[in-house]
């Protein structure tokens, strides 16, 4: 089947099997390997990307379901050489260690901050509860989201 998608603003088309998972389209057909795979049951969230601006676990979406839609991956967060405030927040607050869950956390966080520009700590914790991290204990990920929220509020 032919699938046409816009990924990080760039148009792509590919001839794919109907069963191809979106995460494999992104990682293997388009070679955007920032999106990771961490489980088979859509629990870990390492594969989170934005589909028309909404976070989805791309291991649980078929590539063909993304036909005609816009996808944003971690590679699309930096614009014109400027990092997204959440990327800066992760670095500033030591919100990552091995880096494997980070892209999924970032995508979930970016979508969350759009809807909740002034989140409480509990709201942040609930928002990222579909993304597992084994390294950080989440404390500094929460701080990274707060860091970004403050920065976005400040008009950075």
């Amino acid at each position, binding site marked *: 089947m032919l699938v046409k998608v816009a990924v990080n603003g760039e148009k792509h088309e590919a001839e794919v*099997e109907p*069963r*191809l998972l979106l995460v*494999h389209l992104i*990682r*293997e057909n388009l*070679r*955007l*390997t*920032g*999106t*990771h*795979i*961490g*489980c*088979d*049951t859509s*629990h*870990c969230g*390492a594969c989170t990307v934005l589909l028309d601006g909404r976070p989805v676990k791309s291991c649980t979406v078929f590539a063909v379901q993304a036909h005609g839609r816009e996808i944003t*991956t*971690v*590679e699309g*967060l*930096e614009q014109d050489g400027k*990092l997204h405030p959440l*990327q800066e927040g*992760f*670095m*500033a607050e*030591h919100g*990552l*260690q*091995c*880096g*494997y*869950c*980070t*892209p999924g956390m*970032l995508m979930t966080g970016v979508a969350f901050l759009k809807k909740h520009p002034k989140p409480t*700590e509990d709201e*942040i*914790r*609930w928002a*990222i*509860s*579909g*993304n*597992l*991290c*084994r*390294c*950080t*204990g*989440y*404390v*500094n*990920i*929460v701080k990274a989201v707060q860091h970004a929220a403050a920065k976005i509020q400040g008009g950075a």
Partner: protein
Amino acid sequence: MAPKTTPEVGGMGHSIKRKEDPRFIRGKGTYVDDVVLPGMLYLDIVRSPFAHAKIKKIDSTKALAIPGVLAVITGKDLEKYNLHWMPTLMSDTQMVLPVEKVMYQAQEVAAVLATTRYGAADGVAAVEVEYEPLPVVVDPKKALEPGAPVLRTDKKDKKDNHIWHWEWGNKADTDRAFTEADVTVKQDIYIPRIHVASIETCGCVAHWDKVQDKLTVWMTTQAPHAIRTVFALVAGHVGLEEHKIRVISPDIGGGFGGKVPVYPGYVIAVAASVLTGKPVKWIEDRMENLQADSFARDYHITAELAAKKDGTLTALRIKTLADHGYTDAAANPSKFPAGLFHVCTGSYDLKAAHVEVDGAYTNKPPGGIAYRCSFRVTEAVHTIERMTDLMAHQLGIDPAEFRIKNFIKPEQFPYKSALGWEYDSGNYAGALRKAMDTIGYADLRREQAEKRQRGELMGIGISSFTEIVGAGPSKHFDILGLKMFDSCEIRVHPTGKAIARFGTKSQGQGHETTYAQILAEELGIPAKDIKVEEGDTDTAPYGLGTYASRSTPVAGAAAAVASRKILDKARKIAAHLLEAAPEDLVYEPGKFSVKGTPDRSKTIQDIAFAAYTNHPQGMEAGLEAVSYYDPPNLTYPFGSYICVVDIDKGTGEVKVRRFVAIDDCGNIINPMIVEGQVHGGLSMGFAPALYEEISYDEIGNVQGGSFIDYLLPTAVETPKWETGNTVTPSPHHPLGAKGVGESATVGAPAAIANAVVDALWHLGVRHVDIPITPPKIWRLLREKGITE
């Protein structure tokens, strides 16, 4: 302690930002599954549905008919090359692929090689295997009973399922201490089977290049050099000699011990690449990872503690049954089949101790590796901290006061424990008092008393652990004969920048940053000017790798020693440049100056340039050094944790309200990274305390084999950690550092378990095994008739 260097130089004590982060936050890391080579094939594995069964027949016909499926590899194929079995790190043997029978559910049965990932999975589904089920042995106690089916029928003359017996300490002295004791407590403690579940699973890309006569394996390994040697030892006879093997450990998505062993998938991928001449990728999925990769723990412990009436602890006696699955594939130093479990006297001045461990075979996957803990130290700490708490409660003494009374005192260090370890340094009461002040211990005890009056269940738990890391001195520590040194090689470039390579391998610990800080501290070269590399056996010096919190204690020390070798030469070059005698020069990080005339000086950058452009005649050019550091002793990080829990009488849920962790890892390289390590460690202590367990039903079906029922805590459950430090430097480590990666995982579970028992003690509860799940507590409360 104020940092010696400026923030611009970024030596020890500065929370400089991580060098690793710019690539990771852009999605530009390179993990194994990101490696793609032209013509690469995909390997997927057929796994057994039975825990114990004879393989009658493997029919590949349908699989081979699937377009893109190239081959189905079985044990019989590997047997031709004598590659169907491989040695484990504990010198036991493990099947790569079975020829006769399978020994656990999810064991590898056959492998399918295909041109695509999906094609390989289709092939796996189409391979038809005929099994004849055999009696299953799940319970290690039953495994050792007379008449139990003997599992390792491959071992000639093996008549039972007993692997080894190991004991340590003075039995007679210990038994006498128990006879003479005023008070004794005894408790069965089960520390269940769990899994590290790093978010990246395991995998590799193996590429045998026939023309270059070279095998390159990108793999998820914490110990690339040791793996290269193991590959050469296993497959040297079929042409894979060590100089032809290059192991590359790229970015690793968490390791925690799970990426130390050699799994069959790696070996099959290598064999498949050698046979086809094409690159072969094998990436396991999460269920394979949880069900087949090495587990941790699974210790059935019976512990006894003896004390005098006044609360002075005297002796500890432990008997343990270790369930190793069908083979002993633990990752322990060779001399210690139960790891460093004999650090089980913990933080206390016990005069006598004796510990016995017996290993048993069962129909479960092999392992016995760490779970972010160095060699069975969590098992040891959990036991002594539970037992100490039990004794304190039994004697009616406050558990904090009881610990302080029994701690090894600061003036007793270096301290020789009853089981023979020489603890380097410690101030245990200092850490506990700081934790008590931070959390407001006295107020919490008052609150607890009031709440108890109202029938509310609140508990306060303490864990004052002593870790033992930095394996290890070559006299006692080796893995498969390889001594457990580690290494650093430094090259300072003419323009004063440097590259440093190590025998370790970061999996998230931030070595690229912290090692650069050690060099910055010693050499005065800014950390930003130092490139750190690890994980490529063709370029990095040989080392035993990163696990058991050994990177800072061993490779970090190597970095300091190599730096000091560079400074020795730098001093001579500086003397030449300044026309002074080397001994007349004064060094401060980054600069040599002439004694008494500080304006006559040369920077390390001047010296580096001179090392290549104007070195003294008779001296070799260049500014390089290497150190293979053999630690004189282990290091003993410690800490005290206090945890407050509230128990919901309606659901049995344990809520961790507060958790204060005071850690002492000696001198600190990067406070930000240390705090991050403690956060992560605490979370991996919290997880098995309340959530994680892999168990088996009576026919060996795994429970907890996917993230559906193996519960990793999310941000919602995980407590808001409160952390702090005391600093007691290690006297023997060149930097006074001790290591920290695993301390919190070792120390945290006992604090939580102690808090739960503390909340329920007045109801007659003496012990609860982890994980302390709501059903477990709810059933206990129902027995006591107090559920809501």
